[in-house]
């Protein structure tokens, strides 16, 4: 029952939504994945890695 209610929040059995910009056509789902990859890439560069400061102090 819980899964049915959750599935109702994100209906997947419908036509896809697309973004159009000049010659670029991309589905909203794919666009969201690309944005998430860019965000992940930036976070991977700026977030401190656990234990790095401790190792530097140790050295």
């Amino acid at each position: 029952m819980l899964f049915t209610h959750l599935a109702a929040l994100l209906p997947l059995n419908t036509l896809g939504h697309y973004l159009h910009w000049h010659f670029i056509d991309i589905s909203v789902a794919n666009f969201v994945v690309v944005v998430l990859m860019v965000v992940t890439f930036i976070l991977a560069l700026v977030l401190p890695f656990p234990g790095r400061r401790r190792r530097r102090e140790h050295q």
Partner: protein
Amino acid sequence: MSYSDLERQWTARVRRRLVRLLPPERLLPDTQPTYVSSWIYVFGVTTMAALTVVIVSGCLLALRGPQWWHGSSVGLFVNSLHLWSVEIFFFSMVVHLWGKFFMAAWRGGRALTWMTGVVTFLTSIAAAFTGYLCQSNFDSQWISTQAKDGIDATGAGAYWNVLNMGQMLMWHIVLLPIAAVLLTALHVLLVRVKGVVPPFEEKSETSEVTA
């Protein structure tokens, strides 16, 4: 047979060459350079972890077949596991690719490492596309008829027929997974042989951290 005769055997010569190329402490290192302590370096191993789940879930799907993965709740779960592990696999591989591209990871004699990564990426795309054709549902029928026009336009349609379910299934579950796994293994071995590429500003840094 004397000791020198034994040393001349091809097995001994190959062993000596392999150990010289990749000593055990470099094959399975205890430490890595300090610059590896960054989140950008975790996406290669994330990709391999996802590939492991892809292979295992794919083997489970192969054991039980389409009626199971379409008709039972456990089958649907494993089917979804296969799909989402592929999503994580490509997500991680693309972030890994961006990281290595901006590091110019082909520096220092690492061109072959870079190129094996490129070929692995292309092989994985072919594996994913043939996977779409093997779902055995209306989605795969639609995709195969659309892909047929594209493949025919390249001239390869006579040899690689996306409407041929048997051929596409064999490519998806035999040839392409074997190629992807072997290329990944070669890619990792080359990383071990040449070491992780250093950042531009830290070429001289030599201290190491626990792996």
